[in-house]
């Protein structure tokens, strides 16, 4: 576990560097906007460009003013205390929030230049390219084979299904453990294996991006390490965005980290700081980031 240096860190006083968005009323309890310097644009090609993205659940304003670029074939981590909106933000990236009737999104979420919330965009097309792994492993009550083949079948992916399934299970680093009986039920595996099965299931659809919502929080430390290794491997071919409440995990696994904070639980989540993981953890530019990372709150 990496220890963060206690002193010698230069901190910009963000209160004075505030840039307020004109015309929008801010109440005193909302978290102030991040300093420009606190949001760094990655030099790699951007897969996602979020522009002024906000999210509502009914009347509850969950996220506001998110401006962020997610780089290609890197791991980007979203961190922050509970209720800061990181899961909401993740789910904005593949239109999973559509499933919640009261959810509303504003702003632009550009995926390779195309706004996924444009009129006429089909969410099915979006989700084929942007896969998701959930916090609690959720394999279908079907065989291992049918779990992995499900997405491929539904999306009409051509090819030999046996090969597709085997390749996905290899990519998810679980082939050796299950190759002897693919007809076994997905539910008969251990927690860590189930999660890797879910990853294989997402991979079989041949996506471009994989979103992971706290994928290890329900797993034991050994399973967690296996999945973290897997994540690093997967960046050769995929872009990964991972939400985690475990800062050490973010530090271990990600290339870029975004830190979010909300005024109150579930209300007004803002992006405070975003940049290369090494910089965030050794030299954060916003005082609140430093406070969170050193454990003063959260």
């Amino acid at each position, binding site marked *: 576990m990496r220890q963060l240096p206690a002193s010698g860190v230069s901190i910009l006083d963000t209160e004075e560097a505030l840039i307020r968005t004109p015309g929008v009323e801010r109440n005193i309890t909302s978290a102030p906007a991040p300093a420009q310097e606190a949001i760094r644009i990655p030099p790699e090609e951007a897969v996602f460009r979020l522009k002024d993205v906000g999210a509502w659940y009914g009347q509850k304003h969950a996220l506001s003013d998110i401006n962020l670029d997610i780089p290609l074939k890197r791991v980007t981590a979203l961190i922050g205390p509970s209720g800061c909106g990181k899961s909401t933000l993740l789910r904005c990236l593949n239109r999973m929030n559509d499933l919640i009737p009261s959810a509303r999104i504003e702003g632009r979420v550009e995926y390779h*230049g*195309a706004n996924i919330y444009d009129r006429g*965009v089909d969410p*099915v*097309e979006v989700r084929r*390219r942007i896969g998701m792994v959930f916090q609690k492993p959720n394999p279908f009550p079907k065989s291992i084979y049918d779990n992995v083949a499900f997405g491929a079948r539904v999306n009409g992916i051509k090819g030999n299904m046996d090969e597709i399934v085997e390749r996905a299970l290899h990519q998810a680093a679980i082939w050796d453990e299950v190759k002897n009986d693919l007809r076994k039920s997905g539910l008969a595996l251990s927690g860590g294996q189930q999660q890797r099965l879910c990853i294989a299931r997402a991979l079989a659809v041949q996506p471009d991006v994989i979103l992971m919502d706290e994928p290890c929080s329900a797993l034991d430390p050994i399973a967690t390490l296996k999945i973290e290794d897997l994540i690093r491997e997967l960046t050769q071919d995929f872009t990964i965005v991972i939400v985690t409440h475990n800062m050490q995990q973010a530090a271990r696994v990600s290339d870029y980290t975004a830190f979010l904070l909300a005024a109150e639980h579930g209300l007004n989540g803002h992006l405070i700081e975003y940049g290369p993981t090494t910089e965030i953890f050794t030299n954060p530019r916003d005082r609140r980031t430093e406070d969170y990372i050193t454990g003063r709150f959260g």
Partner: protein
Amino acid sequence: MASQPIILRASDAVARRQLVSRLSRYLFLGSTLIGVCVLVVLAYDTIATGASRFSFDFITNYPSRFSEKAGVRPGVLGTLWVLAVTVVASIPVAIGTAIWIEEFAPRNRFITIVKINLANLAGVPSIIYGILGLAIFVRFYDMKQSILAGGLTLALMIIPMTVIAAQEAIRQVPPSLRDGALALGATRWQSVRHNVLPNAIPGIMTGIILAVSRAAGETAALIMIGGFTFIRFDPGPPPVNFDALLDSFTVLPIQIYGYTIDSRREFQANASAGIIVLMIGVMTLNLIAAVIRERFRRY
């Protein structure tokens, strides 16, 4: 590598799948509405045919050769008395059984058999209960084809479903209520009587009312007991004595059946008027049950 602009509109394959999905919504909705439609048509047809005959006189008249004068008086009274016997006979037994199974019975193979037995009895055809009642109450206990025999037969028929409903209601009571009482030194019966039962009462009552509603509409079992008779008197009390329960009887559903199969066309209106009377009773009971369930819904 410059990024190519991505088209996220539905491709042909996806568009097809989405279209099928959207159309399926209307298919499923249509299917659902068919059931609703049947209910509506049924209600409309019955009311249209029977409204002319339905009146206070209809309820108070005896059957007659003349369709305009023929009424359902013996059936209504018979139903009331038979249900009275049913309720008195079945409620204590059903509640007692449910309490014993849920609270006191040891958890072993025997209890499983009791539960399976109850589930099966709930599904035994009503005509078989009719045969049972015929053999046991009418013949063996020599109650003859009477209100008492009919009421007891229906009691046996509705006990299983009432037990199952009462079991459900008792199970819904949170364990903390039971444990709290026991921790204070109460005996198990005391915790049941003072903590569990009062909270389970709404659910139990709902179950009882629905079971009685079921018994009110029962025809076949009571035909086997001998309820299909042409009666021109008031079955049952007064006079208020035990012999009154040994009167011959008929019930409303059987009278409806009689009018239905009557080949004389003019009696059809009597059948539908009888149905209106019966449905008013049944729906009132179901409504009361639904109201109780909603009002006391805590979980």
